[in-house]
């Protein structure tokens, strides 16, 4: 059944939502939306460099996304206004990535695939990488769950309880970089941030606990993937944007329904 490209696409997308559900919830709780953008935009630079040096795109994007994530984590808490730092880094990384890409012959035509992803073209290898990365992120979050939640509520309260909020922040940042790296082929650098935030925002409407919100975000994300792929086939629209559009429709519907908590 993996021979069918649509099945592979659906599996890749739903696998990704295993990670983006809980991770996206943390991005929402910690108001790190821009952080996701910065890391994702940096990934375009990673794509360009991967082609330039002839290395795997996954390795290249992971390296640059990690570098960006660590830079931002370092700069935060140094007195810079966070949104300014992120705005500078996110858009510079995107600009440098696009400039670097233009200098590499042969990449120019493929660039939109990296910006918007091409979920219909995922190979079995891509599928394995997405699931591997998503499960790894999920395990890391599950392992640190209590500490992550405690530091998300309030870092000082967590520190007074003997936790190390900087370690928890590092875990999140690394998980984010890994998620961006494995998802760039599927939804692309411009839309991964949306896939992190929109389903989590939808789940917020109905959740009464952080765990319920994380699970709800994964479900909302998975439903968006399936509906988006269906719409893409039905109306011959690009798959990645269709998935995000479906996530946005679900969020809009959730606003109309009564909020539970």
């Amino acid at each position, binding site marked *: 059944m993996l021979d069918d490209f649509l099945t592979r696409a659906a599996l890749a997308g739903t696998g990704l939502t295993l990670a983006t559900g809980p991770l996206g919830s943390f991005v929402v709780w910690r108001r790190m939306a821009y952080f996701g953008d910065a890391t994702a935009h940096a990934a375009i630079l990673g794509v360009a460099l991967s082609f330039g040096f002839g290395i795997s795109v996954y390795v290249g994007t992971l390296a640059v996304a990690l570098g960006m994530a660590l830079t931002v984590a370092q700069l935060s808490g140094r007195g810079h206004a966070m949104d300014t730092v992120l705005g500078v880094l996110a858009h510079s990384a995107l600009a440098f990535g696009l400039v670097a890409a233009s200098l590499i012959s042969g990449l120019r035509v493929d660039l939109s695939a990296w910006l918007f992803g091409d979920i219909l073209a995922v190979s079995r290898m891509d599928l394995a990488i997405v699931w591997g990365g998503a499960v790894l992120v999920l395990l890391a979050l599950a392992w640190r769950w*209590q*500490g992550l939640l*405690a530091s998300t*509520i*309030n870092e000082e*309260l967590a520190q*007074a309880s003997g936790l190390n909020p900087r370690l928890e922040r590092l875990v999140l940042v690394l998980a984010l970089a890994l998620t961006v790296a494995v998802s760039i082929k599927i939804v692309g650098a411009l839309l991964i941030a949306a896939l992190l935030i929109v389903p989590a925002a939808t789940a917020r409407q109905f959740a009464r606990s952080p765990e319920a919100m994380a699970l709800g975000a994964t479900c909302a994300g998975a439903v968006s993937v399936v509906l988006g792929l269906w719409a893409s086939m039905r109306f011959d629209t690009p798959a990645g944007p269709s998935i995000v559009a479906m996530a946005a429709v679900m969020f809009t519907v959730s606003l109309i329904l009564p909020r539970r*908590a």
Partner: protein
Amino acid sequence: MQLPKPLITAENLSVSHGGAPVLSGVDFTIAPAEIVTVVGPNGSGKSTLIRALIGLEPAATGQVTRQPGLVIGYVPQKLHIDASLPMTVRRFLSLPKRVGNADAAAALARTGVPGLEGRQITRLSGGQFQRVLLARALLAHPQILILDEPTQGLDQPGTAAFYKLIDEVRAETGAAVLMVSHDLHVVMSASDRVICLNGHVCCAGTPRVVSNAPEYRALFGLGTGGAFALYQHVHDHDHDHDEGHGHDPAHPHHAHPHAEHPSHPPHDCEHDHAG
């Protein structure tokens, strides 16, 4: 008498915010089962002091030593919880360590907010949230409770009940208590030792000693008598063992903070009241 090992000690502690000194040359110690209250006007560095003692603010000079593995129950002055985070009171009590339902219910009952488990924490009133924070702190079985203006938002009976609770907790668990407070009279009656802060330690000692210190009276603009009649009465009633003592004999050093700091006016608190 063998002095118990202090839980937290600060020596010559100074803290600056962006180059401006907030605290300078503070010596501090707190022993197990001791109730110490920090009083002082707004901007005197009370919150900064306790934050530095917990390790949330770096010391510009001097050092803070906490007993290794010290379990702290901290209730901050304000705590903003982002509305994007759905969290019931019950779930909140299980952070960072999971606790049983019975323990959670008992802690909420104890702090005067029984049955709140199912409520969202962002929907609590200020007073309720303060008590939930205290319940959470107690569930950690702290060796020291650190409370930053714990009674703000409580009415007078609530405040009185709060200090009674603190005293009971100390008696039952042997936890030390370090508080910042504005409720001068009540706090003083409930404390073993009071530290009057204004960027530096103005005076320190037993409530009786501090309340008679000229620095304290100057800071809080109190006459001789008047408002303190209330305090004296309550105090004499609750702490008979202090009668006739100029300061707490268990902590002689900390009633003499100026001995090491000749830059500050040398009048020591207990000069007015030496036993």
